[in-house]
């Protein structure tokens, strides 16, 4: 669904489209995404297969061996352009692989992102024993990820995918102090500078054709090259990122070639259930009917908010989401609109309950927690540890994207969550909006370059503000006090394609009111990225 589907339907049908994209994954904001393949094809073929084998093996070996001592990180796949070298293309060029009707495929990517945050003004930091402030000193952050993508056809309509990944990272301020404006979408909760390997995805996917126009799916990470009916039912089960299927990136631009900020990965207020890395277990069912698509997913939440262990009691604790998507053409340019709603039933705390518990009994403060908590030492602050119980969190959002010219598109997305309960998996944001423009470099004769500019804003609810004002913290924010304001980010980037498989990117982000607190900031962050895919 990810890649392929777009190529065959509207949005990414030809080489004139911006790209393709893929789904990301998140993690406390961090996520990984997936990329897609470039539908443009055409390409010069590699003639000497003898070179390919050592190169492919060497790449795999280098990634694995290097990953251990390096700082690598996790992320998702990148796009695959027609001229872009890959093992699958090399095999196909030698007539050893049917890339349009694949039984299996394998791809890989490596991404290194470095950010530097300048010192910024702050009226206070970690006041009264709170611990979640963004440190006002200058800091450096990095992520490095190496990923392998394997896909195999099991039977008619059946596909399976496995994605092992290695990540190393060093977040800013231990990933504290920012709401949705995490400067690097690859960051994960609980990550370390020592590389960690894990399985990011293991899924089985079954497609039931219902007729309609045949659509071609290009070979890409997590997508076997094949053809699907324009009308079909798709059922997926296993371990995945919900963003592989819901609220995919604007214009299918691979996040590893696009915006650096997490705020553009999906709705910042979309607190989808997932483990600390941003992945979930569960199932997704989709119905495609020409230009329409409807999907529903139920996935596992973390056992404790923002932690890695997962609660598999899917009938008791779960995250449900439903999305309706329509693809259209406006003035002969492709576009799409999506409406997404989620409802989580999880073991989480309500802000008002935490405040009420403290007022009723001052001993029920943050410093006295004896169940899962984030380690605040503020003895006068409320804490969610006292009030966690089965609670419901809901939200609804809209996304629209529209090409305004070949390879140039604009997008907007916004979501409102109820704001009554704490962040369980994604970001602390309760309401979010983002708007931006993305362009491929065909206008200036560099069709594989990508440029973008975007703005995102996030807010928190009055109950959330009151909880923070009293010194409470959640999974990511809490300065010990607050004068509330919108946390916003302006993100500008340019990705230069070099040698078909390599991208070098530069990025600048201006973050206002970090942690939704007008007493702090603004923050300036610059970044650089190296991305390789094969």
């Amino acid at each position, binding site marked *: 669904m990810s890649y392929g589907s777009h190529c065959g339907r509207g949005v990414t049908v030809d080489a004139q489209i911006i790209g393709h994209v893929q789904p990301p994954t998140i993690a406390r904001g961090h996520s990984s995404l997936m990329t897609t393949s470039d539908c443009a094809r055409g390409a010069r073929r590699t003639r000497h297969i*003898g070179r390919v084998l050592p190169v492919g093996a060497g790449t795999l070996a280098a990634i694995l061996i290097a990953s251990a001592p390096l700082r690598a990180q996790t992320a998702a796949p990148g796009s695959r352009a027609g001229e872009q070298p890959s*093992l699958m293309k090399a095999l196909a060029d030698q007539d050893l692989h049917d890339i349009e009707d694949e039984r299996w495929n394998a791809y890989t990517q490596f991404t290194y992102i470095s950010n530097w945050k300048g010192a910024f003004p702050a009226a206070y930091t970690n006041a009264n024993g709170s611990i979640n402030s963004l440190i006002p000193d200058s800091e450096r952050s990095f992520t490095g990820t190496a990923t392998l993508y394997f896909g195999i056809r099991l039977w008619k309509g059946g596909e399976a995918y496995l994605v092992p990944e290695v990540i190393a990272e060093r977040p800013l301020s231990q990933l504290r102090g920012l709401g949705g404006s995490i400067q690097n979408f690859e960051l994960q909760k609980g990550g370390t500078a020592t590389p960690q*390997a894990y399985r990011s995805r293991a899924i089985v996917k079954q497609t039931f054709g219902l007729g309609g126009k045949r659509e071609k799916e290009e070979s890409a990470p997590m997508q076997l090259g094949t053809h699907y009916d324009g009308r079909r039912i798709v059922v997926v089960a296993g371990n995945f990122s919900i963003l592989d299927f819901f609220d995919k990136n604007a214009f299918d631009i691979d996040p590893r070639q696009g915006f650096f900020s997490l705020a553009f990965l999906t709705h910042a207020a979309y607190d989808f259930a997932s483990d600390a890395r941003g992945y979930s277990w569960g199932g997704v069912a989709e119905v495609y009917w020409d230009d329409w698509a409807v999907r529903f997913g139920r996935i596992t939440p973390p056992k404790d908010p923002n932690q890695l262990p997962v609660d598999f009691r899917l009938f008791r604790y779960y995250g449900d989401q439903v999305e309706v998507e329509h693809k259209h053409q406006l003035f002969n340019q492709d576009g799409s609109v999506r409406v997404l709603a989620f409802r989580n039933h999880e073991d989480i705390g309500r802000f008002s309950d935490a405040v009420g518990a403290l007022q009723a009994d001052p001993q029920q403060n943050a410093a006295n927690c004896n169940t899962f908590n984030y380690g605040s030492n503020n003895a006068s602050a409320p804490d969610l540890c006292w009030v966690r119980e089965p609670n419901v969190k809901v939200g609804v959002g809209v996304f629209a994207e529209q090409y305004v010219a070949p390879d140039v598109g604009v997008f907007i997305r916004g979501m409102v969550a109820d704001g009554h309960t704490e962040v369980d998996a994604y970001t602390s944001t309760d309401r979010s909006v983002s708007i931006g423009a993305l362009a491929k470099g065909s206008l200036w004769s560099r069709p594989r370059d990508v440029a973008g500019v975007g703005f995102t804003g996030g807010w928190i609810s009055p109950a959330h503000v009151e909880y923070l004002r009293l010194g409470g913290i959640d999974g990511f924010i809490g300065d010990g006090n607050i004068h509330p304001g919108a946390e916003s980010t302006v993100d500008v980037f340019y990705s230069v394609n070099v040698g078909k498989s390599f991208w070098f990117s530069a990025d600048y982000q201006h973050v206002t009111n970090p942690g939704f607190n007008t007493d702090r900031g603004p923050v300036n962050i610059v970044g650089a990225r190296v991305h390789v895919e094969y």
Partner: protein
Amino acid sequence: MLSTESGSVDSVLVTTKRRRFFTVPFVLLVSMAWSARTQAQQPPHGFAVERFYPSPPGGGWFVMDDLDMQGGLGGAVAVASGYAHNPLVVTPSDGTQRFSLVSDEVFVDFGLAVTYHRYRVSLNFPMPLLVIGTSGMFGPYQLTAPAVTVPTHPDVISDARLGFDVRLLGEPASAFRLGVGAQLLIPFGDRDDYVTDGRYRGMFRGLVAGDIGRFSYAGQLGVHVRPVDDGPVPGGPQGNELLFGGSAGRRISMGSRTLVIGPEFFGETAMRSTVGEATGFEGLLTVRFEDIGEQHLRVKLGAGGGFVPHFGAPDFRIVVGLELVGRRSEP
């Protein structure tokens, strides 16, 4: 003054030297004692208990390798899964306090191989789904059992294996084939989960295989370079190991399909120890169904257990495997 001072200084120095003469050994002894005490109190680290290393995708057998690489650029993918019961049982020399530090283990091993002519490069990712056991005391050590389940470790990967194999002598389907192989084991996972040594490891193996009429065989002899030699767990890793194994099967032709039935044995022994406590040996009775010509498919089933108990050789083991072998072109 000066001499007095000097003498005084000398006296102090002598005194200091005398003190040092006694103090240094005392400090050393205390340090050593403290160190020993500290060591005794340190919780032991785990190690990679699993000794079932599936053959590279396309290798035919479960552990042995049929050295059947051929043709132009090709490849295979494989998934193996299995259950092992009591792969690590702690039994002190007096026979008391016996307990299963690792009592149940379920894993999935996914592999991908690329072949060209007589060469093969492979990559395997083992993924533990269940590693649990019973904690207990062994002498001064508190041995804590692993507690790996899918909910607590939803995405764990253990030591990945990057391998290279080459057939030196013989042709595919010939009576005698000789090859060598090397594997690099890249440490992933947590030692406390008993899924990794936390160190790089290497395997270098000599391989033989052949097909004589309806009879197939394969064998291996090699070295497992294993730096870990500090496991306080009885029967734990003791450094580098000698690997050995063999298999034999009867081929039953079913048109374009083939059924192969036969036993497979494999084991290892620590190179610096005598055979016995440092040796593990297990066997599997295997059945595999092959339809390489049309479906490019191989399905495998095996069951068996440890003949010589040692870590990794379980009371019994059940394994299944699925291989998809790519088309082969002329070289």
